[in-house]
């Protein structure tokens, strides 16, 4: 690997000290105190139609500014999904509808001076519902007589196989080679069905937005969002006003994990401000975040693996049934990753595959984007099936993976026929095996105290942005005294992208990270960026930064050429100076900056936009050691080893913490996190009392290492890391639980109760 100056170093985040000293930098800290308080009355029914709604009494509560019902909103459907236009997600929403599709769906918007008045008014709105039978089970949804979206104006902008008359949000089938023939030639076929539940992103800062009108009468939306530009379009669609009337900016974000790739809270205060002309804010409670947002898609996945006795995997067949809930946000797109990312992992000997799916509407909370975005679900199913195959063939689970894993240079038919241009998955496996001491540890060992110690393994891949779709841009500008301003519209949600992008700029401009100031994101002033999601920022926007800096250097050389009275081609940029190649003369960056502000007609600012025709996958391996208590069914984690290939690691600290955080979320998904429903469609886990995310007592040591590859198309060889790191814990832990108990758990989470039921103790 090349020697870097500021890349591949543990550079401290630029906003670190503000964050650790508790400065007021988040949406609710900076919202003016005179904002109208906006809250939403929510449906108590999973499926109902509003017969009558009376707001007269509620409006009389002192301090109430306005109450809006379905009669007051534009009759134009839209999607809340933060995706590039035309969005694959169907236009199936109104700001308020007279048909309610899940417990928590919005019935009315109340705005008032204070919380107390708004809470009182919410109780005084009289609604007469006609309660309808809901469809709650994803398996029963397709072609059910109960339709979630019977409306005539429902619309799918893209051909994703959607049909609202069949409760279908999307459906597709793809095939490579002759799967049935290949399967018929195989020695062994494994076929199983796996079930992953919905999970909450559970970022610490709930959804929150404040809105105001600027001096030009434009709507200014300040929101904790990953997608400023998409949000501008979503709001324009929802409010039925021109995009030119909206400005979106984001302050610090208290975590996103994909949750804030969907516009969850913004439409309500925006509507209030537009109607009243007054500033307004909406701060989601945790209960609202748990019950009226967009968590991970529940999926049921049936995997068929065809293999030879020696473990050669020749054919894969996957059917995914995905539950998008009441609305279709990200429904058509998450499901694709369940196949593309899982099948491609076993590319080495693969002769044929089939992948088909249905995405169905049901009367539960709408699903959306969550770190891993469908790959997590697919990889749990695929990795579990491969471990089951290894067990059936009496092969080692690592050995079967080494035999079949995707290798560098291979074309991947299931991954849009892209080539795997950088891949150290094999070295990740080797390194993880050494760190974990895989071959010297038994699959299971009775500890003699009622506990069994066991091990498990899994691999994963993801992507780096969406090929041919995601767009990242950067503006870099030279200022007085020779410091630079970097402007972006990618949203740092805590991951440190502001710092990472500044590192890339500093490496290019041969300066310190402190010499780069960074600004973002604001739709009025930032260059276009599709936003921070799909593991795209370092790879897509990072490359834009690199290209912009290279162009800026050329411009600065042209100014220096005037000062030194020579040709720009004769000059060399050395960071603080630009000098002639022969060393005879030089000029400082400070003098160039001064010159740029006096009698100069060369712009010292460059904007570059970048998109990529490929999406090089990061890879990783996870190995876990656990102890299962055979009396209580509880699972204790003892050790987790993770080795990641994310290309060049740009910031060694941030990549490590990303990995540890992703593992923790994956562990939560494997062991306890789930969204479950009563028979009436009410969510049981509506607070952190019931929805348990891991505490520091629940985790074990997380040992993380990197096996860098070099991705030529990425900035300084980098790929992504954000999502891949959540994918290994569920299958690795399920594998370890099998090794301890002899029972495959094909449904997540693997709770003590399920473990005991599995071994026949309940």
């Amino acid at each position: 690997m090349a020697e870097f100056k500021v890349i591949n170093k543990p550079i401290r985040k630029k906003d670190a000290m503000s964050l650790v000293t508790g400065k007021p930098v988040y949406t609710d800290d900076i919202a003016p105190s005179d904002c109208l308080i906006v809250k939403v009355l929510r449906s108590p029914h999973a499926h109902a139609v509003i017969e009558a709604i009376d707001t007269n009494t509620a409006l009389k509560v002192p301090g109430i500014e306005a109450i809006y019902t379905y009669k007051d909103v534009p009759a134009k459907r839209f999607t809340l999904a933060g995706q590039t236009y035309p969005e694959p997600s169907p236009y199936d929403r109104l700001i308020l509808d007279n048909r309610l599709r899940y417990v928590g769906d919005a019935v009315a918007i109340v705005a008032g001076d204070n919380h107390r008045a708004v809470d009182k008014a919410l109780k005084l709105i009289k609604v007469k519902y006609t309660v309808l039978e809901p469809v709650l089970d994803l398996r029963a949804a397709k072609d059910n007589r109960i339709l979630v979206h019977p409306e005539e104006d429902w619309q799918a902008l893209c051909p994703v196989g959607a049909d609202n008359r069949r409760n279908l949000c999307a459906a597709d089938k793809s095939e490579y080679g002759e799967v049935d023939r290949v399967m018929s030639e195989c020695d062994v076929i494994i076929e199983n069905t796996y079930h992953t539940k919905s999970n909450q992103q559970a970022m610490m800062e709930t959804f929150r937005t404040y809105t105001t009108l600027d001096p030009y009468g434009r709507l200014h939306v300040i929101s904790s969002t990953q997608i400023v530009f998409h949000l501008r379009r979503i709001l324009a669609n929802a409010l039925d006003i021109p995009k030119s009337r909206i400005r979106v900016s984001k302050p610090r974000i208290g975590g996103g994990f994909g949750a804030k790739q969907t516009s969850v809270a913004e439409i309500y205060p925006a509507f209030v401000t537009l109607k009243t002309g007054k500033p307004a804010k909406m701060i989601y409670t945790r209960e609202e975040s748990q019950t009226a947002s967009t968590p991970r898609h529940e999926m049921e996945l049936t995997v068929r693996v065809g293999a030879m006795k020696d473990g050669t995997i020749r054919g894969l067949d996957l059917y995914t049934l995905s539950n998008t809930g009441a609305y279709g946000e990200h429904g058509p797109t998450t499901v694709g990753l369940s196949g593309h990312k899982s099948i491609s992992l076993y590319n080495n000997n693969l002769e044929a595959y089939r992948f088909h799916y249905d995405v169905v509407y049901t009367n539960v909370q709408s699903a959306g984007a969550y770190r891993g975005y469908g790959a997590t679900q697919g990889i749990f199913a695929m990795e579990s099936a491969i471990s089951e195959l290894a067990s059936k063939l009496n092969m080692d689970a690592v050995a079967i993976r080494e035999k079949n894993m995707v290798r560098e240079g291979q074309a991947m038919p299931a991954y849009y026929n892209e080539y795997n241009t950088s891949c150290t998955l094999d070295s990740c496996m080797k390194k993880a095996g050494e760190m974990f001491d895989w071959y010297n540890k038994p699959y299971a060992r009775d500890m003699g105290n009622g506990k069994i110690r066991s091990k498990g393994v899994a691999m994963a891949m993801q992507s780096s942005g969406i090929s041919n779709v995601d767009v990242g841009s950067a503006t870099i500008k030279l200022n007085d005294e020779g410091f630079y301003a970097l402007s972006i519209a990618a949203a740092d949600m805590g991951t440190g992208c502001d710092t990472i992008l500044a590192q890339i700029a500093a490496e290019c401009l041969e300066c310190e990270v402190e010499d780069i100031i960074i600004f973002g994101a604001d739709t009025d002033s930032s260059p276009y960026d599709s936003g921070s999601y799909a593991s795209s920022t370092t790879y897509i926007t990072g490359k834009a930064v690199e290209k912009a800096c290279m162009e800026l250097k050329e411009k600065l050389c042209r100014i220096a050429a005037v000062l030194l009275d020579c040709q720009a081609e004769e000059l060399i940029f050395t960071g603080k100076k630009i000098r002639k190649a022969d060393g005879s003369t030089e000029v400082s960056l400070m003098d160039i900056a001064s010159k740029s502000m006096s009698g100069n007609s060369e712009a010292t600012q460059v904007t570059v936009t970048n998109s990529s025709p490929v999406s090089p996958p990061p890879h990783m391996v996870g190995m876990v050691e656990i102890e299962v208590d055979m009396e209580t069914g509880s699972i204790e984690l003892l050790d987790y080893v993770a080795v990641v290939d994310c290309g060049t690691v740009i910031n060694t600290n941030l990549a490590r913490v990303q990995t540890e955080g992703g593992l923790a979320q994956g562990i939560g998904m494997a062991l306890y996190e789930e969204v479950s429903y009563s028979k009436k469609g009410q969510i049981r886990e509506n607070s952190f009392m019931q929805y348990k995310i891991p505490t520091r007592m629940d985790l074990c040591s997380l040992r993380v290492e990197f096996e860098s590859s070099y991705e030529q198309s990425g900035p300084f060889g980098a790929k992504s890391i954000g999502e891949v790191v959540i994918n290994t814990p569920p299958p690795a832990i399920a594998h370890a639980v099998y090794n301890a108990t002899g029972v495959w758990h094909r449904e997540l989470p693997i709770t003590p109760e399920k473990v005991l039921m599995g071994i026949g103790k309940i």
Partner: protein
Amino acid sequence: MQIKLWINNKAVIKEAEADLLLIDLLRNNGCYSVKRGCETGNCGLCTVFVDEKPVLSCSTLAARVNGKKVTTLEGLQREAEDFGTYIAEQGAEQCGFCNPGFIMNAIAMFREKQNPSDEEIKEYLAGNLCRCSGYEGQLRGIRAYLEYQQSKAAKAELAAQNISEVI
């Protein structure tokens, strides 16, 4: 009712409704470091000191702090910077939203325990949730901070010994 309290050593007299929560009283008084993460006493983000003891301000009525001293991270900026630097050096501050409550409770721990073990640290801070970091970076930061404090204390002791020898 009228209550009197000290917020970061400043006397404040407030008219407080019976159901006013301490977190709202504090945020209304400009202490924006105090964050609300869950409303159910589960996440630890709203941790403040009441008479030097860490409490969850989302689960404390304002009326109960009448006559008491309340400290938020705004009142502990030097300590927050000192310790926070070690968290920042690990990149473990991440989104930062849980930092104030976590750092408040960590400061309480440092005041209470001289040399806590990893297990003691985890137990003490178990009520402080973080969704970004996976906690490992926080633990590394705490360990590095404690080591620094101990080496500083050892040096101070050594220096004191030398001085006494000279005297």
